Every structure is written in C-alpha cells, then in structure tokens.
C-alpha cells in the first residue's frame, strides 16, 4: 500500500482511539464514576442541574461534563509569583503526553484479514490474503516494553508540577507521588515477567492471540487463569501508578489540599485531571489486554464459535460480526476494570503513606519475585 494511504489510516486510527474512545470514556468516567457513582454510594443525588439545550432532562449528569470543560476555559489562569513560569506551564502537557502516548499499542481487535479468516490450532489464520494492522495504532514488537517506558515518564508530570509551583503543599504532593510511583513501578515490571514467560512475546496483539489457546480443550488461556496472583499484583501496582484511591495520598485532600496540583487553575488544572482519568481508562484496557483476554471472546475465532475440538465452526458467523463482537468484548472488559477501580475507591479507606511503602516494597515486590520464580519453574517442568 502506498505511504500516504498508510499515514491517513494511522491518522484515522489515532482520531478514533484518542478522540472517540480514550477521551470520552475518560471524561465521562469523571462524571459517572467519580461523581454519579460516588453520590449513589453515599446516598445523595449527585450532579443533576446542567441541561443540554432543548432537552429538559438531566441525562444522568452527562451535560455537567460539557459545562465543566466550558467553564474551565473561561477561568483565570493563575501562576503564583514565586513559581517557575516555564515549568508551571509545561507540567500539564508533560502529564497528559504519556497518558495519550500509551494508547499506541493497545489492540482493539485482531489484525484485519484481507482474505478469508478461519481457525487452525485455536488461532486465526488468513487464507488467500494477509493480516493488516487496522485495530491498533502501532503494532510494535516491543509493545509491553513501550508501555513500561512511557508509564515511567508519567512520574515527571507530577514531580515537575509539584516542584514548579513553589508551594509547600505542591512540593509534598509531587514528592509523595514520585516516590510512590517509582516504588510500584518495580512490581509492575516484575509481576508481568511471569506472563512473558508463558506467552513468550512482548507484542500486545500477539499476546492476546495466544490467550485464545484452550487448556484441556475448553478453558481459554487468559492471563487471569494462568497467572492469578500476577493479576492482583499488577492491578494494585497500576492503581498506585495512576494514584487512584486507596493510593491517593499524593492528592490527599485532608492532609495536603490537592497535592501537586494545588496551584493550578483554569484549563491547566483540567488537563492534569483529564490525564489522570485517561490514565485510569488505560489501566482498564491494559489489564484487560494482558489478563482478561483483550479482544478475545471465549471460543470465538475468525469464522465463528468453536465448541469442543471441532474443525468446522459450531456457530458460523460473518467476519464483520466477529470484529464487532471482539471490539465490544474489549470495551466491556475495559469498563469492568474501570468500574472495579471506582468501587474500590469507596470500599477501601485511604492507606497511610508508610503503609503504601510497606505494601509496595515488603509485600508486593517479594510476592512478584516469588511469582516469577515459581512460574519459571513450573514452565520448565511442564515443557
């Protein structure tokens, strides 16, 4: 295919993934998850005043998200006098950049097959055609390493925001968040080592393809089935990485006001908030990609459902319906992990800072090392 065409397709994919998936879900979650779900749990009504023009219905508070964005634009952007103006202005961009860049490697469905898709050995094969990467922005071979690298960059956003404001609350928030994020990054990397041993690839789409394999001809080999401990370790580490409750001491309201974004106002504040929510949605999509089978629907392959060890599909389906089912399956899993994160916020009390450090270094790190050793040993014995 010629280059201009390919670049156009990439641009289209970026628009669809970022503007139609990550951002709307991220910002809707601000509302539905953080405000409406919170209000339901606390037995109050929550946002219900804003209306869309012409519709006299609160629409579960969705217009509030538009109203908030609009309001932020018309607010004064205050930079404290002692602050470092350059870094204070750049900090929101530095926190939003990794949250967006991470989406590059998430596969929303299998590569598109230009010929006829069918199944051999529990994975799609393409007859009379080739696979073409249409459902992830970039089919990077080192996909998971890219995720680690970029999520490490997100430490800078909070640290710089805290330092540049030159306020004591901001500095404390920035310090806390950087210390917490680097502590949990170790667990994040090591807990996935077991997954890498089993799947033997760093490419996220290939990883999802391997999860379509069946154990004993009926159980899909999803990450949560073969690595249940790693699932919990990774989810905890990722929640600490995105500073979600119960790990939200960097912005603990009762102690240090708003933490590292105390001195931010107007659209800069909105950008920092938005980057946190987009990162939260990303956690949902990464956990479902690695541990919940990503776009896999159990027993569904290129041309339909296969029940039992058969060569012909038990329920044949057209290829477009398979793709729709797969994208839908991925979205539902992502939303499920999101819902779980918001429920955990109101279920668990906030940890103390020393408890967070103890959990990270003395519990999760040894557990992820043990998980790695045991996985390597079991794989060695079974081979």
């Amino acid at each position: 295919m010629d280059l201009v065409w390919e670049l156009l397709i990439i641009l289209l994919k970026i628009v669809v993934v970022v503007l139609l998936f990550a951002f709307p879900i991220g910002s809707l979650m601000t509302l539905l998850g953080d405000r409406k779900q919170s209000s339901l749990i606390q037995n109050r009504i929550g946002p219900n005043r804003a209306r869309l023009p012409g519709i006299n219905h609160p629409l579960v508070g969705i217009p509030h998200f538009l109203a908030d964005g609009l309001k932020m634009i018309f607010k004064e952007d205050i930079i404290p006098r002692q602050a470092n103006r350059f870094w204070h202005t750049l900090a929101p961009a530095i926190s939003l950049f990794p949250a967006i860049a991470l989406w590059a490697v998430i596969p929303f469905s299998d590569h598109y097959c230009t010929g006829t898709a069918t199944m051999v050995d529990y994975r799609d094969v393409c007859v009379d055609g080739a696979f073409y990467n249409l459902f992830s922005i970039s089919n990077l071979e080192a996909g998971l390493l890219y995720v680690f690298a970029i999520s490490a960059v997100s430490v800078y956003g909070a640290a710089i925001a805290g330092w540049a404001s030159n306020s004591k609350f901001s500095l404390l928030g920035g310090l806390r968040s950087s210390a917490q994020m680097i502590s949990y990054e170790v667990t994040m990397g090591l807990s996935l080592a077991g997954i890498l041993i089993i799947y033997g690839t760093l490419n996220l789409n290939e990883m999802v393809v391997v999860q379509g394999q069946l154990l004993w001809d009926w159980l899909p080999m999803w990450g949560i089935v073969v690595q249940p401990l790693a699932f919990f370790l990774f989810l905890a580490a990722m929640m600490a990485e995105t500073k979600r409750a119960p790990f939200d001491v960097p912005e603990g309201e009762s102690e240090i006001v708003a933490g590292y974004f105390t001195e931010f106002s107007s659209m800069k504040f909105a950008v920092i908030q938005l980057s946190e929510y987009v990162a939260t949605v990303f956690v949902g999509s990464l956990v479902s990609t690695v541990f919940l089978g990503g776009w896999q629907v159990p027993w569904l392959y290129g041309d339909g459902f296969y029940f039992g060890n058969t060569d012909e599909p038990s329920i044949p389906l057209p290829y477009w319906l398979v793709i729709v089912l797969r994208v839908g399956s991925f979205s539902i899993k992502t939303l499920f992990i999101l819902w779980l994160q918001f429920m955990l916020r109101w279920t668990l009390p906030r940890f103390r800072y020393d408890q967070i450090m103890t959990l990270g270094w003395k519990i999760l790190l040894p557990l992820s090392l043990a998980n790695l050793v045991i996985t390597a040993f079991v794989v060695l014995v079974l081979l």
Partner: protein
Amino acid sequence: MIDYVAILMLGLVGVAMCATVVALSVLFGPRNPSRWKGTAYESGSEPFGDARIRLDVKYYMIAISFIMFDVEAVFLLPWAVVAKDYGAYGFVVAMVFVTILVVGLVYEWQKGGLEWD
C-alpha cells in the same frame, strides 16, 4: 518503521491537544493579577519562607532502591520472553541472578532501608 511513525504522530496529536486547550483558556480567560492572588496557598495564612526546603533522606533511599530493582526487572524481562527456548540452562542462570538480588533485598530490609518511619 511505519509503527514508529504512528507513535510519533500520536505524540504530536497529544502535544497539539495540550497546546490547544491551554491556549483556549489563555485567550478567553480573564486576567486580573493581584498581590494576594499571586501568593502560594498556605491554608489562608501568609506564606512564610521558600517552599524549596531540604528534603528527607527517605525519598533518596526509595529512589536508590528503585534504580536497583528496576534495573533488575530490565535484565529479567528479555530472559522471560525467551525463557521457554533456553530451558534448564537459562532457568539456572536467571535464578542465580534473582538469588543475588534477593540477598540484596534481604540485606536492605535488615538494615532498615525499607522502613518509612
């Protein structure tokens, strides 16, 4: 190659998006600075001293431990990807490596390097 171009394009879209929204607020937002608006927030009282104070050594300890164990992870991940091909030999080598690091972790733990209080 096209995969890296895609990442570059996504990055540019991200930067452009930040620039647009912040520029919007600069364009449309009001601008009346005052003496008290420009002070750092310190619960309503007048801020005293500079915020860039000396920090607790605990944060440096965490940073050093992080370097150690994250480098460990960097060395372990490539082995993990090809662990099946390397079989018993790779397993033994990796376990020697992990053992050395576990000894390091235990030592740091015993010395109190992981204590927050």
